[in-house]
Every structure is written in C-alpha cells, then in structure tokens.
C-alpha cells in the first residue's frame, strides 16, 4: 500500500502530456484532430492513383474525357487481358525482378563491407576515398550516360542481364547509408572479438552483420525499389522487347502518334502492384529496423 502511494506521487499529473492523456482516456479531441490530419494526407497521397486505376478499367484511347468519368460506367478487364496476352508482360516483370533482386543482393553484401571499412577501419586515403564516393552522387546521371553506354556496349553487354545489373552496382548511396549504420555500433564489441583472435572478416561476418540486420533490410528495400522504378538506364541499354524491364515495357506501350491510355494505365497499375505488396509485407522491418540508428553521425 505504502509503495503504491509513493508511486502515485511520482507519476506525472495525467493531463500534462497530452499524448499520454490520450492513451489513457481513449479518443479525445486531440487524437481526433491527429487522425483527421492523417486521413487528409492519406487521401492526398492516394487520390492521384485513382485516376490511373480508374483509367485502367476503361476502354479508352483518350487520356481524358469531358466530363470526366471517375468510376467507369462499363468497367472492363480488357486492358489487363490484352496486356498479358499481347505483350510479354510477364517476361518484363521477370526481368525487373531478376535485375532488382540481383542488384539488391550484391549491393547489400558489398555495401555493408565498404561501409564497415569506412566506419571502423583505418587506412591511408580513407577520407579522400569517402569524399570521392560522396562526390559521385553529385554528378547527374544524364551526363555520364554516353560514356557508360559505350563501356557497357564495348563489353558486349547490351540486351543482357549483366548490362542491366552491373552499372547499377556502382551506386554510392548504399555505402553512405551502411557507413552511418555501422558507425553507431560500439567499438568495444569488435575489440573484444579481435582479442579473441578473430580476423577482420570474421568480425565482420560474426559481429557486425548480425548487429546491422535492420540496416541491411532498409538498404535492401531501398535498393530494390530504386531498381524497380529505375528508368533511364534500362531504357537505353535494352533494345530488344524481351529484355525490357517493367518501366520500359510499360512506356513502350505508347507509340509516337497514338496511345491506348487504358492499356498504359493497366501496365502502370500492374507494375506497381508487386512493389506495394513487397512494401506492405516488409514495412514492419522497414520501420522497426528503423533508419534512426543509422542516422547518428
């Protein structure tokens, strides 16, 4: 009894933090307002897609109708059927999947290695190298497109998976991210491992990797999504229809002078669907792992 009273005295008055108050008292005006903001924001985020989704169920050659028809009066699945029957859509999806997965797996491995080196090791030229990594982020991709294309072409990699994958591996952002993650880990751990006679690689493999698993998930999801929506490079490097990725394939559904917007929208919807699913399943890790730890300098 006495103990309980003491606790009660220590407890802050219920109405001081409104958040705690809300949690305790159930729905309050404050909480309703917050949900209001979120609902409005979600609506704004969602509404633009409704245009595309609605168009994908219409039999339409025009992009827009006067007056606009928000909900198709005669919804049709023809666009989706046509897309899957007349175009190698499944192949495009497979291509995107192969490319995005390969890049993701390799990137997660080599970026965590590079991040570890930059975060925890001393070696000559460390700062200079890291500055180079950062600076490569600042060069617009359009500017290096031609030399890159020529290199890849000279390596005979046009219209191959390698041609789609390899250049994507030269992306600096993951190194930056992993360095930020690994830097937050206490040095004692590696030192202890070192005293136990672990080699650097063993430390990396046994100590560092398990600790940054959330970070790896973040990097993986980020890389996968970047690759899935990547456009300019696959557009330039793939000239054969069967080597198109989804974004390129969907874009190829429009020709120069006439466009079937229904098919195009159906393509856009189908190309986003897997990504939305991936995100829905992984978002728990995405947030739980949280970039937070990584963001401390």
């Amino acid at each position, binding site marked *: 009894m006495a103990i309980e009273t003491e606790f009660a005295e220590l407890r802050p008055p219920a109405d001081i933090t409104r958040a705690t108050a809300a949690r305790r008292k159930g729905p309050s005006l404050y909480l309703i307002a917050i949900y209001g903001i979120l609902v409005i924001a979600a609506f704004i985020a969602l509404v633009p897609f409704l245009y595309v989704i609605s168009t994908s169920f219409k039999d339409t*050659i025009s992009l827009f109708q006067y007056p606009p028809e928000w909900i198709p009066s005669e919804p049709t699945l023809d666009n989706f059927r046509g897309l899957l029957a007349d175009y190698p859509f499944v192949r495009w999806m497979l291509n995107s999947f192969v490319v995005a997965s390969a890049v993701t797996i390799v990137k997660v491995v080599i970026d965590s290695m590079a991040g570890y080196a930059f975060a925890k090791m001393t070696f*000559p030229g460390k700062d200079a190298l890291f500055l180079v990594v950062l600076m490569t982020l600042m060069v617009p991709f359009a500017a290096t*497109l031609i030399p890159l294309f020529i290199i890849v072409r000279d390596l005979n990699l046009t219209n191959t998976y390698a041609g789609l994958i390899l250049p994507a591996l030269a992306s600096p952002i993951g190194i930056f991210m992993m360095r930020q993650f690994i830097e937050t880990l206490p040095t004692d751990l590696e030192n202890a491992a070192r005293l136990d006679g672990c080699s650097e690689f063993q430390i990396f493999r046994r100590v560092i990797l398990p600790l940054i698993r959330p970070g790896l998930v973040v990097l993986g999801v980020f890389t996968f999504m970047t690759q899935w929506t990547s456009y300019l490079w696959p557009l*330039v490097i793939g000239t*054969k229809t069967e080597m198109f990725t989804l974004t390129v394939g969907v874009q190829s*559904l*429009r*020709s*120069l002078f006439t466009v079937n917007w229904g098919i195009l929208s159906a393509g856009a919807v189908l190309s986003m669907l897997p990504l939305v699913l991936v995100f829905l399943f992984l978002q728990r890790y995405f947030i739980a792992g949280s970039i937070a730890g990584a963001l401390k300098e």
Partner: protein
Amino acid sequence: MGKRILSFADRRRLRDEAVVDFRHGFINRREFMLRATAAGVSAAFAGRIADAISAPAPMPAPSRWAKQADATITFIKGPHHPDDPKFWDTLKQEFEASHPGITLNPTFFKWETMDAELTAGYASQPADVVYLVDLVLAKFVNAGQVADISADVNAEDFAQEKAAIAPFTWDVTDFGGKTYGVGALGAAFGIFYNKDLLDKAGITEFPQTRDALVEAAKALTTDRVWGFQFRDSFPNYAHWDWLPYVHDDGGDVMTADLTAQNLDPKAAAATQYLADMKLVHKVSPEAGAYEWLTGNRPLFEAGGIAILHDEFPQAAVWEVDKPVSFNLGVAQAPATTEGGEQTTMGNFGYATISEKSPNKEAAWEFVKWWTSADVINPYAAEIGLQTVRTDSSPDFKSKLLQQVQTEFVPKVQGVQLAENYYEMLTNIWPEVERAYRGEQTGEEAMKKAGEVVTGLLGS
C-alpha cells in the same frame, strides 16, 4: 654498428620493408613500385577507354556484299504503333524470303530517348540502317555518321523509283549536292474541325484565308465552345502548329541557303496572328491553359473546340478506332490572303545508312525494298502514317488520312535542316511563348529569336 649484425636476408627484408608509413609519406621501393604500377595500369586503362570513346577504332574495310555472301543488317527505328515489333517480325520474314543471304535484324529506339540512344549508337557501333527524322538528320550527317548514297540513288536501276518519291524529300536529304537518305514515312500536321459546329454557325466552307479564319472562329466561339485552338507549349511540340503560319507567309527560320536568319518580319506577323487569337479576338484559350492530351483532344471530342490544330495520324482514332460523335473535317492552315499558297507542316523520316556500316550494299538492298510501294504502303496503312510516294498511296482505313495523303502531303513544307535546328528551336520558343502571353509583340519576339539564330549560325 647495427648494420654489421644484420644478416643478408634481414638486410634485404629491411630494404624492402623498413619504411612503410603512408601517413608521413615514407614509401619503400616495393610500395612505390606497387603504387606506380597501379597508377600506371589505371591511367592506361582510363586512357584506353577514353581513346576508344573519343576516337573510335578504325572500322574494318567494308566487306562488299555479294549476292552469295551472307550479311546481317540491323535496322533501328522508333515504334510507330504499339504492335510495331510484331509488324516487323512479318516484314523480316518477307524481306529475308526475297533476299536470300541477308538477315534482317529490326530493332527499336524509344522516342523519348531517341537523341541519347542514337548518339550512343553512333559513338560505338550503330545499326546499319537508321530511320532518322528530319529534326536530327542534319546533325548526324554533319557529324559524318551518315553514308553518302548519291551513287546508289542516282544509279539507273533506281531512276524510276526516285521519280516516284516526292521531290521535297530529295531536297531534305541533299547536303552539299550529296544524298544521304530515302524518304520513307511521316506525319503531317494541320487542322481538324467539327463540321456540325461549323454548320450551326452557318459556315459552309472551311476558311482559306487568315481573316476568314478569324471571322469564323469568332462566330464559333460561345461561352461553351472555343472557336480555335492550337498547341502553345514546348513539350506539346507547339512549333508544329506555329510553323505553317510562318511558312505561309513565305517566311522561315533561316533564309533558303541557311546562312542567315529570316524570322523578321514575316514570321513576326504569323506569331502576332496566333497571339491575337488568344489576346485580341479571345477565340482561343490563354497560353498554356490546355495541355494537348488532357486538354485539347478531350475538349475537341466533347465539342468544346470547333477548329483544332493537331497531328493528322489522330484521324485514325477519331474516325475509325473511337469515332467522335460529330462530322469531322481536315484542313490546312489558311493562307495570308486570297489566292495565297497554303502549306502543310510535316515531320518526315528517312532511311539512312550508317557510315560505319560494314554491309552498305546489303543495307541499300534493304532501304530499296522497304521504301518500295509494295512494302511501305501497306505498312503505312497499318500504322496510320503518311508516305512520300507520288505514284501510289496507302490504303488507309480512315478517309481523312486518304485526303491528307493525296491533298496535303504534296504541299508539305517541312523544317529547314540545319544541324543546330534543335538548339535554335529551344531558344526561339520561349520568345514565341512570351508573345502568346502578350508580354511582347510578335515583332519583338522574332527580333530576339533572329538574334539567337544568327548567333548559332555564326558559331
């Protein structure tokens, strides 16, 4: 003292390894060698790549294609139809059947990245036959990437074919007296009009002069209908709707010999005329108000625009695929005055052979085949584009396209082919837009644009 105690092995080891401290810049011999080698190798590698990119390795001497020898030729064009790859599967079979020994490999660039893809292609190993649109033809000819095919074109066995292809295309592909391509396909741009609305306003014949067009547009404009609309912003290719008014006046961007700017004053009148449609007569929406695909077209389909500048291939949609609910007509931009000559704007593409192609003869066989009446006409009908042949025309499903082909295509006056054309356009257009918004007169706009053109011709 210490030295004496050292064994030979120790000494050698120390000589190699004693001072390795990067932080203080001490480097021993081995390290130096290692670094130097690394630097050398990477420099050589970078140099080699830079060499390869900047000065392409000399191509092997063109192996002359003989009827017996096998050759594979690659063709690249942009898709003119969502099913274009399928059409080309068929064309490939037909070509290979009639040309044993030659394998055809049709490929596609994407229109949005055409410039990047073609540049990259020419920089390394381009396709043997490239479909080049007029806007970029001069640039790549000027860069020495397109083969001179004068000899083939002027050969006796091609004389009949040459005569059957519209003369304007031969003007376009002529650079310094040499021929660099064969006209194949194109799109013409001009006016669509809603006959029902014109009938209602008592206009029985489409206006042939500028003044008549203004009067008609005024009569057609109500609070629910715009009398006249044309594309007015750069990403909508607004220059296609502007140029016929410049051309009708005998004006053009440059003089006929492409040596000086010619935009002032006739083009000024054309620019002012279109601006007045918006600002003075108020028969056309303010500049930029309606985007082409989400504005002009749906508004026209719904009867909200009476006279609309657009691209003629759209006739296939409005007449056949998804017919509009009113009677549709096509016309050319009006002439300045009574009896003046009307022109049609067109964007045409040419079959060219790459200078680097090792199979030029086989490539020429393909060009001849593709541009021949029996091949190009059915293909054009399928994709809904115009051809440039004068002896025959495609069997279009759309009657309006037929009309465009027979009546307007012969009157096409395309863009002037200068290697700087795109840069000129990029610099001219902001001035035209200012005039459309009423921030300056057509005259001022063309004066500034003229300076840009002159500057680019000088450079």
